């Protein structure tokens, strides 16, 4: 009994780790959709770049930080990665999306797809083979509890949590809370929310809409980059193709939660993480994707606009 409970607890920890990363990525999608009603399909590839940027930066900066505690290197690399990917995201908006504000929506989406493909192919040119991430910290495993195998034959089950998992979950939570504060308590956040309601009147109120939009992209991409770095640390072999694989999944998570909704993105991310981890508990791992997507499809059938989303209002 306790054995099963511990097993589930372990999976819950894994799900939290997975879910945090998905939530960070999903937030990027939702924020951009909120202000521009646009699906930024390049976001998944920005996530991937976060991992690669971390790899390059960690490699370059590690010698400088030898005398300092490893967490400092981690923090510096994290902030740099978020800044670089953030500015890249804002740059893409400025150059590729802004000119298409008046064009049919689909053109912007295809452009976004193109940007994502461009990023991926350039990364493939630079790194044709998978690379491994450097370790940024000593990944101690903490034993939380231990229980003997009830059948008496197997090894005892230990409930563990690694330092890396703690870092991932904590960093993600800190970022999410910071974002929530930004959205709800600052003027910038209010401007972002205003634009998501009515993009045309906001400039009439003296709010520099373009600057707010750039900032939204900056923050969204920054979060995506951070997620990439954390993902790379958790699964140390990275390849340029991971942008598509993980990015699309996180996108579905954002939609299931209710795209455009910050809370929805977080909810969707954790649901996806939970489903992914828990699905393989019961079924063979080849069924994992099938379960995940079927469940997401079912949720969307019953709640077409996502769990926390609402139908767009249409004046007739």
């Amino acid at each position, binding site marked *: 009994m306790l054995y099963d409970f511990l097993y589930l607890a372990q999976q819950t920890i894994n799900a939290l780790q997975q879910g945090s990363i998905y939530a960070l990525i999903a937030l990027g999608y939702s924020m951009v959709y909120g202000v521009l009603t646009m699906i930024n399909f390049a976001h998944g590839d920005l996530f991937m770049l976060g991992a690669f940027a971390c790899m390059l930066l960690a490699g370059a900066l590690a010698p400088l930080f030898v005398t300092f505690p490893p967490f400092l290197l981690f923090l510096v690399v994290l902030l740099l990665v978020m800044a670089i990917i953030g500015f890249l995201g804002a740059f893409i908006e400025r150059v590729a999306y802004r000119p298409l504000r008046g*064009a049919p929506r689909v053109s912007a*989406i295809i452009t976004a797809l193109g940007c994502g493909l461009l990023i991926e*192919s*350039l990364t*493939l040119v630079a790194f044709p083979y998978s690379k491994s991430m450097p370790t940024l910290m000593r990944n101690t495993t903490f034993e939380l509890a231990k229980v003997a195998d009830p059948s008496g034959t197997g090894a005892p089950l230990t409930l563990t949590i690694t330092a890396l998992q703690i870092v991932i979950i904590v960093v993600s939570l800190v970022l999410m809370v910071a974002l929530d504060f930004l959205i709800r308590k600052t003027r910038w956040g209010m401007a972002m929310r205003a634009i998501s309601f009515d993009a045309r009147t906001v400039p009439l109120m003296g709010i520099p809409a373009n600057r707010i939009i750039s900032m939204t992209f900056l923050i969204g991409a920054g979060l995506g980059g951070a997620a990439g770095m954390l993902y790379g640390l958790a699964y140390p072999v990275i390849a340029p193709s991971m942008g*598509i694989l993980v990015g699309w999944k996180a996108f579905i998570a954002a939609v299931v939660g209710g795209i455009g909704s910050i809370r929805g993105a977080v909810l969707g991310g954790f649901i996806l993480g939970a489903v992914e981890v828990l699905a393989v508990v019961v079924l063979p791992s080849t069924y994992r994707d099938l379960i995940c997507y079927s469940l997401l*499809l079912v949720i*969307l059938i019953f709640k077409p*606009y996502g769990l926390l989303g609402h139908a767009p209002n249409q004046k007739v």
Partner: protein
Amino acid sequence: MNAFLTQAAKARWPLPALVILGFAIAILSQYQPIFSGYTQIILITIGINIILCASLNLVNGYMGEFSVGHAGFMSLGAYTSAVFTTKWLPDIPMLFPVAVIFGGMIAAIIGFLLALLSFKTRGDYLAIITLAFLMIVKSTWENITYVGGPAGLLGVNKMTTLPWTLFWVVVTILVIRNLIYSKFGRAIIAIREDEIAANAMGVRVREAKILAFVVSSFFGGVAGALYAHLNFINPKYFDIVKSTEILVMVYLGGVSSLGGSILGAVIFTVLFNKLEPLGYWRMAILSAMLIALMLFRPRGIMGMRELTWLLPKRELFPKGVVEKP
């Protein structure tokens, strides 16, 4: 020569003439080595891509939706037709068209289900549903050992030839063209323009959506069936990357245009193959081109415009003429 070309552009005979010529060459190529093996494969691939493009254009271009699941219909057609020819009725070349139709029908049935889902959701939300559908289909094939699982299906006869491909290309273009220039096509386009107004004008929106999805997915399946008998198939091929390729072809050539679909398929396939020696630079160049195209021609090269040869005669109104003579 110039006079001849301008005459030809306004006349009705060029398209049937080209088709007959095409068939003649295609059938001849089966008996004489006119094309190298490599060229034949490129030509067949162009044909398959035209079918994919035109069928996706029906839903994404003419109806204005954003389906990213087309590779899923392709895979349904591919696998079911391959099972038909390898496991159920093996080695009967005469049955190839039957197998292709079978693949198309299975895809069409699933397309019908997707159409039902489209009643309640539109736009981006429907896009997600098509994405989820694509992933589910891919995962399903990966888990069924009967069709080879993740390793793919082996032993499929290479039955796709140039004449057969041309045949299906002509059928696809003809069917979709006749559909578009009928009341059903007008209904589909009206849904894109303004669904609420369409309803208020008596358009039976639900039937129109079903028709669009079913026809689109049928031909997606047909393309898949042709591909299955050309090349080795495994689930990984029919994923979001493939869907993206088809999307790129549609938006490159032009939305809401059959001529555009042909153009997009040809340009993309040719470039894709010609640029292969460049390795990963190939995708970089193609995506940069796509971005540039979207910035300057958001609807694609031939967006919203159609080849005069493809228009039915009664739709050809010379400008300025009020009544038909």
